[in-house]
């Protein structure tokens, strides 16, 4: 239940509701959407990316001299777990055609397509279990231009406008043009899409969509897709070898500068293993667990940007790594679920963000960065936020409107996960609004790829959230689920094709030595060892006692926020 002091504000929300319901029933927007100038102003004034300490220049690697998100610069200016001379590369522990790093949606798609189209064998190496990935957590849906009033080119325009016209056009074309085919591919694998009576796809709006284009599987969209893909992967044990709790910690190169596999670390036996692979795919997802600028995150436990740093040490260029996505609606109260995602589909279905007076202050379906910045502005500048007992702040997301607009029981049926999350704390979202605040959600940038998922490094492919360029500096809702399907499939196709012909040379980890030298030359002093693998949430006094053993060698390979001398520049 909400604390007593919020009752007054809740009363105001209920008072303004009939009028706002009337607005929602009309075809016009319930609040004026911002023009280009207003968008720029709210971003520059209130988006966390624009705070002065949000970015700093990275001193080493392919993007040296470029201003990146501070925590990303910290991540990149770090030491490897390995010393090259201690690794025996002469007799690899495993060999395969395609090594896939990451067991989420992109990785599963790639393994299946490489097998089906090219007969290629894969190893999927993943840090936690298969499917422990942000792919599993998508609630609201996947964009794809399948309805009669829509078209792939309209989807293109929405995506590129949402990304402030900075997206790589060939990637956006691949995304939007492959969309309808992905819907069919998933359906034939057995994904149960939400449908209308006549069998046509049920479509909803998301932020920044000009047509209803969001396809869903109730609010378990990612879980439905992910479990279907995993089940299919597991139907081919002779072709796809799954290695769980075995994250990659470095890439292996050959003497011709091509990627030739990776070193895996067994989280349980704490051994390192070498994998020689004709082609390698990084599908490691994003970095929410870096808690950039101290924000809570919607991301899964292992989202620590491992692929970024591995690829960077090997010489792959990053793109738009100065841009972070904060989801407009993370939970602010109850404390136990703070930072959790409240699906954008709530706004797509008619939910409205309101200040403490129960008033609208922003169009509910602006692109995410705009919507998030407007919510921060409402709290920071206009005093429209509601403080929580633990010292957070939030605005209301008026969910009871949904049943009023679509009929009683709609919330229960279409948002069962959301309903469950709140009812445990005595909040029925069909009757009471949710208290929300932006939460760290998505890595907009990443390793630069082309439409074949190729990087600067021959034999190294990247797909999904780990990539940069597709979304520009702001991703729209539903384009990440489509992303991991479209580009996961493309990666399987092109990495599989490449694996057929390549003849690898002598294996090498020389890039680790040169990176270490570059760090020294640039005068970088750090005790950070990456990939981070897992965050630590032990309280400070516990950490202090753990670190008595010294050397920053920590139990369970956890490094983040677990160093004695935390030199991070972030909040």
């Amino acid at each position, binding site marked *: 239940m909400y604390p007593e002091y919020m009752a007054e504000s809740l009363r105001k929300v209920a008072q303004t509701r009939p009028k706002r319901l009337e607005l929602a029933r009309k075809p016009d927007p319930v609040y004026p959407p911002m023009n280009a100038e207003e968008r720029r102003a709210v971003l520059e004034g209130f988006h966390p990316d624009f705070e002065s300490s949000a970015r700093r220049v990275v001193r080493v690697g392919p993007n040296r001299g470029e201003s990146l998100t501070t925590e990303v610069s910290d991540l990149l200016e770090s030491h490897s777990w390995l010393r090259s001379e201690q690794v025996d590369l002469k007799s690899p522990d495993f060999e395969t055609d395609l090594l896939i790093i990451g067991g989420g949606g992109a990785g599963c798609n790639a393994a299946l397509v490489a097998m089906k189209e090219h007969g290629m064998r894969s190893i999927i190496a993943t840090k936690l279990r298969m499917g422990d990935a942000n792919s599993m957590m998508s609630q609201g849906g996947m964009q794809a231009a399948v309805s009669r009033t829509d078209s792939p080119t309209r989807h293109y*325009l929405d995506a590129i406008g949402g990304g402030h016209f900075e997206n790589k056009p060939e990637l956006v074309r691949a995304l939007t043009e492959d969309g*309808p085919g992905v819907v069919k591919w998933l359906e034939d694998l057995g994904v149960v899409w939400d449908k209308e009576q006549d069998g046509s796809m049920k479509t909803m709006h998301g932020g920044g969509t000009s047509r209803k284009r969001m396809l869903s599987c109730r609010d378990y969209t990612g*879980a439905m897709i992910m479990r279907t893909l995993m089940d299919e992967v597991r139907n081919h044990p002779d072709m796809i070898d799954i290695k769980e709790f075995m994250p990659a910690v470095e890439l292996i190169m050959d003497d011709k500068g091509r990627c030739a596999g990776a070193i895996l670390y067994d989280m349980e036996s704490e051994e390192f293993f070498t994998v020689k692979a004709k082609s390698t795919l990084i599908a490691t997802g994003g970095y929410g667990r870096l808690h950039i600028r101290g924000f809570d995150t*919607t991301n899964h*436990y292992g989202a620590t940007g491992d692929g970024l740093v591995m690829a960077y040490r090997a010489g792959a260029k990053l793109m738009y790594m100065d841009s972070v996505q904060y989801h407009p609606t993370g939970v602010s109260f109850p404390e136990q679920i703070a930072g959790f995602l409240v699906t954008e589909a709530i706004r797509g279905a008619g939910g409205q963000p309101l200040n403490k007076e129960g008033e609208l202050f922003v169009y509910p379906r602006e692109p995410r960065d705009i919507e998030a910045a407007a919510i921060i502005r409402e709290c920071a500048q206009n005093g429209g936020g509601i403080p929580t007992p633990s010292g*957070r702040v939030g605005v209301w997301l008026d969910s009871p409107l949904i049943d009023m607009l679509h009929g009683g029981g709609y919330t229960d049926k279409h948002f069962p996960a959301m309903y469950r999350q709140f009812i445990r704390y005595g909040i029925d979202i069909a009757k009471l609004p949710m208290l929300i605040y932006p939460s760290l959600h998505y890595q907009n940038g990443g390793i630069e790829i082309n439409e074949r998922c190729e990087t600067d490094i021959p034999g190294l492919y990247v797909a999904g959230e780990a990539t940069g360029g597709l979304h520009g500096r702001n991703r729209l809702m539903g384009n990440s689920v489509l992303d991991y399907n479209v580009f996961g499939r493309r990666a399987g196709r092109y990495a599989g094709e490449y694996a057929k012909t390549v003849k690898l040379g002598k294996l090498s980890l020389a890039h680790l030595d040169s990176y270490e030298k570059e760090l020294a030359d640039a005068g970088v002093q750090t005790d950070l060892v990456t990939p981070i693998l897992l965050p630590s949430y032990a309280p400070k*006094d516990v950490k202090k006692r753990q670190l008595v053993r010294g050397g920053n060698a920590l139990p369970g390979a*956890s490094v983040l926020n677990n160093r004695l001398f935390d030199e991070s520049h972030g909040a």
Partner: protein
Amino acid sequence: MKSMPAGTTKSPSSSQGDGKQSLAEQKLITIYIMGKAYEVPAEATIMGAIEYAGHQIIRGAGCREGYCGACATIYRLPGDYKILTGLACMTLVEEGMSLAQVPYVPAEKAIYDIEKLKPNVSAIEQMYPTVFRCVACNTCTKSCPQGLQVMDYVQAAKRGDIAMVMDLSFDCVVCGLCMLRCPAEITQPLVGILAKRLYGRYLRKDSPELAVRVKAVEDGAYDDEYAKLMSMSRDALSKLYYARDSE
């Protein structure tokens, strides 16, 4: 067992462990993690409490928001004979709670070619015959942290009612607690996944416009429009974007 820090650290009560509340205001309770006593914040989730105690979870945490099923937990409360179940990320600690996480539930997934199965009872018989051992004790339903009617979908599977299995198992997070508790050794979540795939593949109503759209893309129907959009200047594209109509 553990000494408490003096109000300097951040709150560990959320499952993110990075909350804003100072400990000075927090009430502490005693719980038993695998039999060992710890004082933890009274408002914490089980996952938050385990991490507050200083454990680095490797197996037993995934999405941390109730979707992935990695954090199945069994527990008992003082004076209560019952074994209770929950997801560690979603369940709050209680005074005297004695708990253990379940890192993994062994279960053999059937290997199949979905193209060769039929969406009826024959697929269930071939792939998961243990379903027919169900004694209708309802323990699975009682152990489901999602509150699903698990036994009802097992019964539906016995009848070959694939649509009902799909519907009732839709929100299953595959935590495995039902199959751990089942006296008939049925692997309920795996039956649910098979049924959902069979429904999606065979029993769905086809979308007429989807096939048309896929064909249009294959035939290059949008090539010209793409070429035009991709060659536009940023200004021209911006103009077009802000002037577009909305549904």
